[in-house]
């Protein structure tokens, strides 16, 4: 395989078949987490069947009580919905840089402002505001110099909808949760109690993390 000894085709085949590269441990961890997350749903079916009708009724009553106890319009917003909003087209022009020039845009959700990233190569290109499950979801879209883009959504209202699963990476003590939702790479975290979602196509996980963790002010565990 070296430049000094060009491979014959059979040498090439032998070499390719001998490669023993292992996947990075982080990928193994992510896959393990996904497999674990996918397994309990199936495992739970068996005990339920053993309980029979009475058990099923009891479970249903408990489920209804839980739903009533925890419901509020705000609790039903899912990450799936929030991510879907970041994939839609903007409906408003991009917000301008904040007059205070504090690294933010003149767009915010309650006291959480959207970041100004133009000096980092990401220009705000549009905005949209939606309502989902009783919450406002404001999304600002950013475009990179090479055509890549991300949608950055801040969900209004606290407490923030809970997000689970995926892989958590800490930066500056703040947990950033990476998931793939409907084929879209997503990073979620909290800023001042608000759920923030950055999602995009054509960007690496590292880019998402860098963008998300670059706005650490007020960030909290998600």
């Amino acid at each position: 395989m070296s430049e000094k000894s060009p491979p014959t085709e059979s040498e090439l085949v032998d070499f390719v078949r001998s490669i023993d590269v292992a996947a990075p441990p982080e990928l193994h961890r992510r896959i393990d987490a996904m497999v674990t997350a996918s397994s309990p749903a199936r495992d739970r079916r068996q005990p339920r069947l053993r309980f029979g009708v009475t058990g099923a009724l009891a479970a249903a009553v408990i489920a209804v009580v839980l739903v009533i106890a925890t419901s509020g319009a705000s609790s039903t917003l899912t990450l799936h919905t929030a991510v879907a909003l970041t994939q839609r087209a903007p409906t408003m022009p991009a917000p301008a840089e904040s007059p205070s020039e504090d690294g933010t845009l003149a767009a915010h959700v309650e006291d959480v402002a959207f970041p100004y990233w133009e000096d980092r190569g990401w220009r705000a290109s549009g905005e949209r505001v939606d309502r989902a499950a009783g919450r406002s979801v404001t999304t600002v879209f950013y475009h990179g110099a090479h055509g890549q883009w991300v949608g950055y959504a801040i969900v209004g209202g606290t407490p923030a909808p809970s997000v689970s699963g995926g892989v958590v990476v800490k930066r500056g003590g703040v947990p950033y949760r990476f998931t793939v939702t409907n084929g879209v790479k997503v990073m979620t975290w909290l800023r001042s109690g608000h759920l923030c979602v950055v999602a995009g196509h054509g960007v690496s996980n590292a880019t998402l993390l860098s963008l998300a963790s670059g706005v650490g002010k007020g960030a909290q565990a998600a």
Partner: protein
Amino acid sequence: MRTLDPQSLTKHVDRLYRAAWALCGSREDAEDLVQETFARVLSRPRVLQGDDELYYLMRVLRNTFLTSLRTASRRPVKGAVIEDVVAADPRPTNRPEQAYEVQEVYEAISRLPDNFRMALVAVDVLGLSYREAARALRVRESTLTTRVFRARKQVAAGLTGEPAQEKQLAETGREGTGASGVSYSEENPS
């Protein structure tokens, strides 16, 4: 027929990662492709018609890869603007002296035309039999054999800097036995 056991899939991660690397030519993209492949497979219970999980994973990997190519073509992106904060894995192989050559060979494979690349990855990287690979890629076995043969020639030529004489032939799709009318089906197993 049997239901696919998600737990049994984890033993294929390394091989799938190597296949993804050879398809993409980059370890970072390979990670994403493998993760996306597993996300698809695990999104709902699966029933396998045969026993071979690897064959099934190859089909999903192929479809996921082709989907990513189509997505990328709609939103062409090359490289990230801001610095990557995740360090590259400094130990890509148990044999460090191989590391450079592995990258070189996988990059050469990733430059092959799609159908040649898929064939070589299925047979030489994943280790599927010609029959399994042909089923996974939905081509005739004779077509698969031709593609693997020519793919190896091109990679070997690419590594020695020789002009890839087969390239033009490959790109025009004239592959000999069984090539016509058996190009990729877009049926999605996921």
